[in-house]
């Protein structure tokens, strides 16, 4: 088990910064998921921990020891790659045992270790096969066994499940989770799949174009996104985000003359352009006569079985709501929604950061509770 700490870590290719300074502490034994869209620098960050990419600026320390200048093999990390990266000409046994062979471990001891690890990921029957003769899931298991056999201080996963089908992915997810529970090794897992991220992570690091947008527990990140990007990126369907501004009269003005009465929020956010956000499942559908009801027109609906998604438009601004009603809702029909002020997030439009209800901006690493 080892803690990893990043301080001012930057990555630069020629003159382009791709990572703009990361300051994050990962605790010993923690399972951290780095989540972000393609090209946000998440894999680069992982490869910098592994030692496969140079660190342009700042330091990465594993267990308090700065590893910037260490070779990959000296860092005590094991990595599981996206395309498995198994040696095609070696049997499963040789693949798993290769690191130990390189380290000069005697054959008998090596065999025993390989067998033990293979057992733990139920690969025993396949030990003498070549990777080409295995299924995707089995190959992924070999890759994991290869990482485990070295008893590393840190596990690094670089989008390991993106080549597996949906069902296998769920199974492997559970397997990784169990593995972490039983070994307790600090793990860093990179993915662009938010379901994977939410279910696996003790803590999430959400990244976007080289910046850390938010660090926090999955529920924190979901319920209290620290920036517009996080609000939009996490959750499916995405959070409703409407651009506009608050007036002194307590109304939020948006779209083509749309007005929403939010007197509790208005005071703190006067005089700046903001976006307000609310999760679709917190948008309530109400009767036309409801006080402060927002009138909207249905675009279309999507049936999910237990509920349905209503895509509507209120004064030119799109709004999505999760609705459990069973009445017919066709295109062009009127609907009415109501919002609770406590469910609404406010983001400063100039920098995309969340602003709390006292008007103070929220930082990426803040633990948000209100």
């Amino acid at each position, binding site marked *: 088990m080892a803690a990893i700490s990043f301080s001012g870590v930057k990555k630069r290719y020629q003159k382009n910064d791709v990572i703009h300074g990361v300051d994050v502490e990962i605790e010993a034994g923690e399972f951290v998921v780095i989540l972000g869209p393609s090209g946000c620098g998440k894999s680069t960050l992982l490869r910098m921990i592994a030692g*496969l990419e140079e660190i342009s600026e700042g330091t990465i320390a594993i267990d308090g020891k700065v590893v910037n200048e260490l070779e990959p093999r000296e860092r005590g990390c094991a*990595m599981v790659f996206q395309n498995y990266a198994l040696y*095609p*000409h070696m049997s499963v046994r040789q693949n798993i045992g*290769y690191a130990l062979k*390189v*380290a000069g471990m005697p054959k008998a001891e090596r065999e025993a270790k390989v067998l033990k690890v293979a057992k733990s990921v139920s690969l025993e029957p396949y030990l003498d096969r070549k990777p080409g003769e295995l299924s995707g899931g089995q190959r992924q298991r070999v890759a994991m066994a290869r990482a485990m056999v070295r008893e590393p201080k840190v596990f690094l996963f670089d989008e390991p499940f993106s080549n597996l089908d949906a069902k296998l992915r769920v199974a492997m997810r559970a397997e990784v989770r169990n593995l972490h529970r039983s070994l307790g090794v600090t793990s860093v897992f990179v993915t662009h799949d938010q379901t994977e991220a939410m279910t696996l992570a003790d803590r999430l690091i959400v990244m976007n174009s080289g910046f850390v947008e938010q660090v926090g527990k999955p529920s924190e990140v979901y319920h209290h996104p620290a920036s517009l990007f996080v609000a939009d990126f996490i959750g499916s369907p995405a959070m409703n985000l409407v651009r506009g501004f608050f007036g002194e009269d307590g109304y939020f003005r948006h779209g083509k003359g749309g007005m929403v009465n939010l007197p509790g929020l208005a005071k703190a956010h006067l005089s700046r352009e903001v976006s307000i956000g609310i999760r679709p499942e917190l948008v309530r559908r109400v009767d036309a006569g409801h006080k402060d009801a927002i009138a909207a027109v249905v675009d279309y609906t999507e049936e999910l079985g237990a509920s349905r998604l209503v895509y509507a438009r209120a004064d030119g601004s799109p709004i999505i709501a999760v609705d459990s009603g069973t009445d017919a809702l066709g295109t062009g029909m009127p609907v009415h929604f109501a919002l609770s002020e406590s469910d609404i997030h406010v983001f400063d439009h100039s920098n995309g950061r969340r602003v709390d209800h006292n008007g103070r901006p929220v930082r990426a690493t803040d633990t948000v509770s209100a």
Partner: protein
Amino acid sequence: MIERSPVFNIFTYAAMTLGLLVVLVPFWIVIVAGSQSLQEVSRVPIVLWPSSHLWENIQAAWARADLGPKMINSLIVASGVTFGKIVLASISAFAIVFFDFRARMVCFWMIFITLMLPLEVRIVPTYAIAANALLPFQVVLDTLGITGLVQTLSSVRIGLEWNLLNSYTGLILPLVATATGTFLYRQFFMTIPDELIEASKMDGASPVRFFFDVLLPLSRTNMLALATIMFVSSWNQYLWPLLITTDRTNYGTVVMQLKALIPTQNGTPDWNVTMAGALIIMLPPLLIVALMQRWFVRGLITRDK
């Protein structure tokens, strides 16, 4: 292109048969002539049907051209050149593909350009080097004035000399450099996924270890294909061995001995013996190709995983 019509089929079969005939007829003539007696081979018009004297002719050719020791020489030279080429090609391609040093593209192009300089073009300078392999160093020392300096100080004149004429080293070394091999290996190495290299780094393998444990086993089919081509081409070398060996008895190769088998202007026109000799001499490369053809095709065309 997939085309299926009777006319097209006839056409393709005709083309293939013609090609096969063009390749096989010379072989047939060699076999036929090699099996005839002196009278039969001198008959006009030529008889294109084998006779029964093959074994005697082979014995005669073997004795006349001293093919026993020459065969061993040829084997030594051809295997030496093949081995050297593979080692040199794999190592240089390894350096060019996997190491990011400043002059790597320059190095690659320098090697690649030598494709345009076959042995025949550079034969005179190559001979000069073979006559004294240390000549370039001598020239460097002379131009830098070090020779003169040492001579005035210690009255000893530096004269570096390493003569490669009439030696296996001389027959092998100048043929070892190969742009084709380096290129083939480079193309193969470039198909190795980066993740494999990274995985071996994570496993703690040094570059040399990676080369021996991962790259060489993976390039086995390529290596065999390359070995086949190289063996055949170095077996067939004629000009270079002819030039560098004055001591034919000890260092002659079989292909050079073909000359000894051709009837002289006023001698007996025993082409049957010449053909039997040719048959012996082309047998080893034929065998190699026959044995290796499975790997040969696979290594050059497809890629097994």
